């Protein structure tokens, strides 16, 4: 057995390089050690080398990558001295890696219970029937409701959170001593993320594992980890306890920048609605909007948007929040008529839009624009930035070529993209720049109203802060009215005057932002708010109290 004082995992000064020696090593002189029962959070932006570090620890470097310097010791044994046989036992035996998108890690044509049972039989040499029983017991342990039934499910029949639980159960079978979670909850809804993390950390503490949580969410690290490491460009620039990181402040300037960017922007939002009160005429008035989707093999249509009513006045911003599948994006798509609504009314500046023909709707399009969710896929890959930004201009009055070009450059300045980038293709831009191009397109024809679909999702910490700043700036300078569709509640606080909470196609609660945040009336709203992980030191027990299972 290990001595408790001795580190379980020791990473000594490792550098990882690829065969292309002209490039600097992808990881440079990374050192840390981890004791039994300890949880370390590794935080960094895209390309910082976080995943590579995890792959180095589990001895599965991609391609021709190899450790060029330093060594990794587990239980006092250096990995480099192990025989191939020992290494195989080490991977997945002593160290387990849990990755993003659990569904892709499961075999799509085998029942999940059977997949677990196979691993059990391989590791413990028990017979088929016992393995199946044991796998059901494991499902129970990782908090899967109705394990007998779930064990018979195929991966595609599970939700993302369920699949992640199955993967965690699988990882725990071999009784590893070290658990690496590489963005294991990326893409899961906040409440589900909370459940999965609770489970992961609870199991880690219970079994005395050393856990490494790799993430770009400082809130997650603050809530679950004992220590935090900040990575930048392949280096571990800071490694300290979470308490000193948050209370005494980060030492490294980059960590400071990151923490500042991740913290909620100064709140509440300082832009005031133009004319508070009911006397101002509503710009957008949605009444009892309904959108049905017909599912094959079912006579009962899915009510994606179910009698949604909301009002936005000039200069106001409303945030539509809710988890995936709640119908927020569908609502937005109905507003700009990417989807035909089934019933209800959408009045824009006093005019009913549902009865307009496509041609008549063009006038509305000019005044109502949308910024799309995923920055890259919403831009035609074969168009240059210049043409992408110029495209919506044809909605307005005809412009001369020169006027068009001038307007494009003006817009690029407005959203903070260098004019030199006007002639590049979308794939040559960073995610933040792609998002900015999306914003520039929406603003091209000076719309009165803009729908932002998940403006801050899937962006790195600092880029997210920049986009929030940009949108705030636009709200102030242009008096823009906007609808935010998001599940990032932190950004809602700094961006929206009003919040509407959506669930199962219905708006269950709406009101002024601060009121909702301070005093949510619905249990579901409270649950959503609780699932936000604040970036502050937890004063109570080191582990979060596990949340009650959220049942739909």
């Amino acid at each position, binding site marked *: 057995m290990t001595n408790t004082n001795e580190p379980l995992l020791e990473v000594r000064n490792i550098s990882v390089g690829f*065969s*292309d020696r002209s490039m600097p090593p992808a990881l440079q002189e990374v050192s840390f050690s981890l004791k039994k029962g300890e949880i370390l959070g590794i935080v960094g932006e895209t390309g910082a080398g976080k995943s590579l570090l995890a792959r180095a620890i589990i001895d599965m470097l991609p*391609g021709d990558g190899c450790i060029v310097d330093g060594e990794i010791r587990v239980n006092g044994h250096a990995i480099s001295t192990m025989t191939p046989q020992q290494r195989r036992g080490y991977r997945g035996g002593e160290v387990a890696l849990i990755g993003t998108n659990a569904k892709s890690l499961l075999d799509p044509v085998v029942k999940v219970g059977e997949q677990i049972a196979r691993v059990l039989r391989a590791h413990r040499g028990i017979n088929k029937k016992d393995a199946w029983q044991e796998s059901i017991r494991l499902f129970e342990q990782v908090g899967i409701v109705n394990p007998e039934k779930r064990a018979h499910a195929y991966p595609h029949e599970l939700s993302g959170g369920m699949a992640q639980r199955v993967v965690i159960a699988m990882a725990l079978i071999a009784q590893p001593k070290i658990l690496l979670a590489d963005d294991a909850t990326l893409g899961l809804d906040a409440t589900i993320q909370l459940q999965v993390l609770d489970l992961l950390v609870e199991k880690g503490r219970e079994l005395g594992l050393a856990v490494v949580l790799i993430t770009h969410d400082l809130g997650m690290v603050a809530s679950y980890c004992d220590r935090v490491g900040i990575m930048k460009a392949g280096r571990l620039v800071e490694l300290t306890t979470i308490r000193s990181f948050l209370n005494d402040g980060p030492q490294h300037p980059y960590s400071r920048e990151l923490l500042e960017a991740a913290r909620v922007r100064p709140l509440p939002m300082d832009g005031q609605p133009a004319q508070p009160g009911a006397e101002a005429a509503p710009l957008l008035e949605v009444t009892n909007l309904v959108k049905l989707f017909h599912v094959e093999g079912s006579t009962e249509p899915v009510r994606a948007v179910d009698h949604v009513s909301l009002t936005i006045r000039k200069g106001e911003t409303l945030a539509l929040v809710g988890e995936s599948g709640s119908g927020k994006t569908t609502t937005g*798509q109905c507003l*700009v008529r*990417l989807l035909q609504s089934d019933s209800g009314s959408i009045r824009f500046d006093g005019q009913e839009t549902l009865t307009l023909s496509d041609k008549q709707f*063009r006038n509305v*399009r*000019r005044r109502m*624009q*949308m910024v*799309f*969710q*995923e920055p890259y*896929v*919403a*831009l*035609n*890959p*074969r168009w240059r930035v210049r043409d992408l930004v110029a*495209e*919506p201009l*044809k*909605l307005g009055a005809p412009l001369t070529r020169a006027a068009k070009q001038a307007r494009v450059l003006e817009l690029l300045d407005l959203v903070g993209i260098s004019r030199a980038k006007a002639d590049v293709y979308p794939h040559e831009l960073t995610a933040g720049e792609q998002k900015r191009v*999306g914003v520039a*397109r929406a603003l*091209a024809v000076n719309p009165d109203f803009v729908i932002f679909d998940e403006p801050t999702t899937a962006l790195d910490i600092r880029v997210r802060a920049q986009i929030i700043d940009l949108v705030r700036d636009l709200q102030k300078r242009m008096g823009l009215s906007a609808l935010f569709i998001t599940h990032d509640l932190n950004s809602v606080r700094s961006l929206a005057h009003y919040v509407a909470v959506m669930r199962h196609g219905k708006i269950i609660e709406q009101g002024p932002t601060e009121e909702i945040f301070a005093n949510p009336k619905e249990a579901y709203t409270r649950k959503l708010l609780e699932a936000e992980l604040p970036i502050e030191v937890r004063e109570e027990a080191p582990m979060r109290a596990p949340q009650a299972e959220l049942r739909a």
Partner: protein
Amino acid sequence: MRPLSAQRSVAGKATLIIGLVLLAIQFVAIIFAPWIAPYSPETADPINALQEPSLIHFFGTDVSGMDIFSRVIFATRINLLISVTAVAIAFVIGVPLGLAIGYYKGWGSSLAMRFFDFIQSFPVFVLGMVLVSVMGQEIWNVAIVLAVLFTPVFARLIRAEVLSLRDRPFIAAARCSGATDSAIMFQHILPNALTPAIVQISISIGMAILLTAGLSFVGAGVRMPTPEWGLMVSNGAQQMILGIWWVALFPGLAIVFSVLTFALLGDAAKQLFDPQTRSSS
């Protein structure tokens, strides 16, 4: 990953260069045929019939005494003319057709697809023979027959691409920016959908050359004395058993040479357009 894609792209470039060299040789034959060919391709000279290959007749002479070398050179014009024309027609009709069928779903597009099934389910030669015998054995008719055969190929390829592109977010974004249906089809979808069809051009030309030759061979293509490779092979086949091998062999080799050219070019195009190899650049 990088070395692999680099390797593939080098292989792609080598294939491309070889293909282009072979193509250049055929272009020389097409343009300079009257100067290269020592004899007229359509003049019979019964006295010198069935001469063995020699310095006077490089590839020998056929049953009517026509110089095979001259005929092989001149036939490059006919064969490539038919094939390129056929594929060009198929491309020009098939691409917009596939675009429309993919973009507008409805009974019209289903009907068009079933019609393509109908065309493509016929054995190629039966269909070719029927059409040519109805329309007459003219060069242009052969080209039209081939165009009919190839149009569904291009339409299907484009349609498949359009179906996956039409629901992509950038199309929705374009619609919000006021793009009309035709702008979405021609400016947004088409440029993104064209790659496989462009690769297919070369492959189809190769197939068209084979089919042209095949139709002539079975007597449903062009007629004597037009110099055409398949026809020449057909004529030579009768003498083959008599030990007169040269009449069929040389035009046969010309077919192989030409088909190989376009197969190589198609292969090179496929490798060079492959997004996996292209992304590294």
